[in-house]
């Protein structure tokens, strides 16, 4: 089976973006996006877990019986999350402190279980690894953009660097997280519907053009 890298990449980052389109992994999205760097850190942890779990689940997809696939997936995901925790605690303890409780919560992150269930358990190892990578990148971009906006508005800083003293503390609060997230989902839906409309119009125009061509050809005959 040929792996369609472009489609997997587009699905993971844009058309099936886990943060803004599928609205998955909302708990870390709302809680961790007080700063842009948190989004990058969390995104990297999720990318690691997604790639590893997708690869292993894809490898074992013919061995795992259908009846116990969910417990098996959770077991595999939990193993990789624990590996990430151990590695971070040993090599990057500060990062481990920043991510805190949300790192073990990756186990129950819907994105990972959803990709395991809907993609990795049905596709090849390479395609599953790429799906994990691009879905993770999509999640990381979502968190980072959200974190950046909240950091700029709520703390007057970007990526930890102070920009100005003006700040609206509402954006640092949980209510601000819901508000910003809602605005972003609306914006994302609006832009994607505009693109979809344009695409459909283009298709429609092409269809009419080919129909007209067919008509003139038959008239000539």
């Amino acid at each position, binding site marked *: 089976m040929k792996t369609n890298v472009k489609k997997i990449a587009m699905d993971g980052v844009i058309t099936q973006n886990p943060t803004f389109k599928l609205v998955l992994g909302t708990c870390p999205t709302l*809680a961790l996006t*007080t*700063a842009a760097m948190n989004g990058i850190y969390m995104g990297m942890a999720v990318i690691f877990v997604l790639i590893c779990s997708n690869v292993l689940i894809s490898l*074992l997809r013919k*061995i*795992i*019986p259908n*009846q*116990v696939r969910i*417990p*098996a997936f959770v*077991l*595999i995901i*939990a*193993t990789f999350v*624990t*590996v990430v925790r*151990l*590695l971070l*605690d*040993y090599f990057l*303890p500060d990062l481990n*402190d920043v991510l*805190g409780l949300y790192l073990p919560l990756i186990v129950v992150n819907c994105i990972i279980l959803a990709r395991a269930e809907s993609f990795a358990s049905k596709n090849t190892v390479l395609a599953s690894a790429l799906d994990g990578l691009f879905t993770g990148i999509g999640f990381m971009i979502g968190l980072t953009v959200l974190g950046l906006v909240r950091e700029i508005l*709520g*703390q007057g800083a970007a990526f930890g660097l102070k920009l100005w003293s003006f700040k609206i*503390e509402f954006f*640092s*609060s*949980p*209510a601000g997280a819901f508000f910003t997230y809602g605005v972003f989902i609306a914006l994302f839906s609006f832009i994607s519907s505009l693109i979809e409309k344009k695409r459909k119009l283009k298709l429609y125009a092409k269809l009419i053009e080919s129909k007209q061509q067919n008509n003139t050809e038959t008239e000539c005959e």
Partner: protein
Amino acid sequence: MNKIFKSTWFKCITVLLLIMAIAGGLLAVLNDLLFVSPEERASRAMKKIYGYTPEYQTVLDVDSDDDSLNDAIVYDFDGVNKGYINKIYAISGQTDDLVFQTVGENGFKGGNITLWIKVVKRNNKYAIDKVILSGYTKQTLMSMLDSNFYKGFYLTDVTKEYNNGNLFTAKGDSKLLNPVSGATKSATAASNAVNCVIGYIGENYQ
């Protein structure tokens, strides 16, 4: 017997057990390889405070699990605001510094905040010289407590403050009086953690 081996339930159990055994083995090895000892954690904290790891002696080292907390030095300020000291290190060598790990309770949603606090001796007076966040539970707005907030806990004469009955309170900071956000509660927990050190120095280093 052959029927059992071919049955679905047997296959299910075997696969799950196999995954569990492999995952367990991998984690056991990694846990052993990547184990961080309490000494290593203490030296990491020293590095955060001093920029290097000085020589130190352990005065108190209590694990944060519930069974060992009976050995911690507990302070109850008014029945609501509480905290405890679970680690004290005396820096040996050129300084008479003390490094505390304290836990302030009564934070947002009943959670707590753990701080590293460095106390130095200057002109025969004990001063709080550095306060660093070590960890927290249940707090959601810790980003609002920036480095300037922790600098607010610096004191030049801890014993004097103790004798005058001056303890930190989050209510004094008008910027944090935001009942919706819960940042005031987090600031209260941090204050309780620092107040434990004021209590300890006041009682033991007059």
